[in-house]
């Protein structure tokens, strides 16, 4: 192979970084200067990067997605799945309605059941419930499990995850070896966090401290903290959850802050992150591919971590 030396060197600023090692650490003032010759060699075009090949390289389970009461749902979700190589999506219709009666959650779950029956190869179902209705919720777990759902979908803001009302539900989910998955936020003025700021949210929205609390009470439970990219303060989330080994986070949400994934892996370890979109599909993949995770780590996050936990209940996808 005829490698043009100049072109080879020219590929990268990274090459230059070797020469300028650490220069950017000196702040914004002028980094060290290169010789004219080095400059010349380094200033041409970068190599082409084939993004879609990278995207398609990894098997993926989307651990947090939703369907809607809309004509284009779940068609639109499936379309993104196909476009971006997402093998399975764990869908639910989250209970974004108050008070969240049994009638309401059954209706929401019926939508999910219909979808997973129609697209069994691509969709996995998660049920929703409201622990304020204990009997009905436990019955709903049975009904949905019988219908083929793999566990709870994104449980919502009717009751905090560490509220005693949740105990019997959580105990049931532990018994069924299911992942206990709940919505969460981390924003000034929400769910009890620095309430002098008013975030205008439901008061029982779960926050990271609530997960720490319930995870300590049920060390055998497997908890999924929803969407570190959901708009909240992901540094706060990861720091709070760092020492709760049975709390996993999903990477979903419309926010794709640079360094979020690296930060989460640094604090939580490479086994406690699940790839997920929360229907922000581009961001969900972009943020992981743009991270500094190794290929093995990316594989874990995109697929293995979640699948390994599904295995515990025999619900794994392969």
């Amino acid at each position, binding site marked *: 192979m005829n490698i043009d030396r100049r072109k080879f060197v020219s590929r990268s600023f990274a090459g230059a970084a070797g020469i300028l090692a650490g220069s950017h650490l000196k702040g914004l003032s002028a980094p060290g200067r290169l010789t004219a010759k080095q400059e010349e060699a380094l200033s041409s075009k970068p190599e082409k990067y084939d993004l879609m090949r990278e995207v398609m390289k990894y098997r993926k389970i989307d651990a947090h997605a939703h369907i809607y009461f809309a004509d284009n749902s779940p068609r639109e979700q499936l379309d993104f799945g196909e*476009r971006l190589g997402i093998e399975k999506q764990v869908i639910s219709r989250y209970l974004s309605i108050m008070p969240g009666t049994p009638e309401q959650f059954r209706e929401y779950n019926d939508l999910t059941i219909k979808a997973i029956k129609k697209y069994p190869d691509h969709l996995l179902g998660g049920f929703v419930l409201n622990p304020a209705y204990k009997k009905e919720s436990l019955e709903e777990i049975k009904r949905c499990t019988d219908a083929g759902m793999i566990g709870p979908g994104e449980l919502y803001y009717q009751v905090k995850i560490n509220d005693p009302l949740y105990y019997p539900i959580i105990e049931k989910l532990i018994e069924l070896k299911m992942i206990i998955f709940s919505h969460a936020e981390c924003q000034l003025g929400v769910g009890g966090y620095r309430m002098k700021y008013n975030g205008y949210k439901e008061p029982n929205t779960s926050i990271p401290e609530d997960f720490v609390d319930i995870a300590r009470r049920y060390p055998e439970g497997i908890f999924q903290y929803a969407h570190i990219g959901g708009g909240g303060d992901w540094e706060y989330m990861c720091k709070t959850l760092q020492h709760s080994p049975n709390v996993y986070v999903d990477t979903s949400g419309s926010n794709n802050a640079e*360094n979020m*994934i690296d930060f989460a892996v640094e604090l939580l370890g490479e086994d406690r992150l699940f790839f997920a979109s929360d229907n922000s599909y581009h961001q969900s993949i972009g943020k992981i591919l743009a991270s500094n995770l190794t290929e093995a780590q990316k594989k874990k996050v995109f697929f293995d971590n979640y699948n390994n936990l599904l295995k515990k209940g025999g619900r794994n996808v392969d």
Partner: protein
Amino acid sequence: MLIDINAYVGHWPFMQLKYNTCEALGQRMDRFGVDVSLISNLNGIFYKNTQSANKELYEEIKASKRYRDRFVPFAVINPIYAGWQYDLEECVRKFGMKGIRVYPKYHDYEINDPSLIELVKKARDMNLPVAFNYKMVDSRQRSWMDIDYVAYTPRPEWTLKNIFPIIKEVPDARYMILNVTNSMQLNEADAALFNKANVLMDTSGRTLTDMGSLLKTQGKERFAFGTHSPILDYLTGMLRIEALRENEADAATKELLRSGNAKKFLGL
């Protein structure tokens, strides 16, 4: 060819950023195949005297030919702060800056402030684009010291409606609208004006989901690749283009999005 029309160096005072120098951004560009980036200095959002930030950027780019070849600097101008007219001249004539970025919320003036109108008219006359953005970071993760436009509260984040008045005021200027993260809805008359205006939007915004439809409704010449780096990850803005299917964007359209529209808009 790939041109990123929305990138930064500098600091965000409430959170450590990675890849926020010319050197580190350049490595990002090389790793992911980006040829040129339009950059401005984040510090200019926070310095009262934004010219100090523009000078920092000028000095940083000046240090290497690679930077000069690969970065197109934009000036941060605050039109309600003393001396901005002189600063703008200096940025263009001495620092070689190719456009202006303004931050009405951070710099604390209204979108129809006479000073902003004066600045945009001046930019128009100097043939410089003026870049607005919806927001810098998601308000739900904001620091307690950050501005308090917060989603889902009575003082919400901006939408296109909040930016549009300046376009209406100076319809013949060139605009960049970056990090499109909320509604693009306008009333019918305004939408018609907006469609006629010379506007380039970038692909970094979190609400740009169905790019295929947007290309149909907005036109394929009104979007260009942008990252909002280093605040947002480097690839999502690119993925919104590369993941388009042939029936949504053919090869020629994708090239427009990757660099053609940016080149044309900026006269590069």
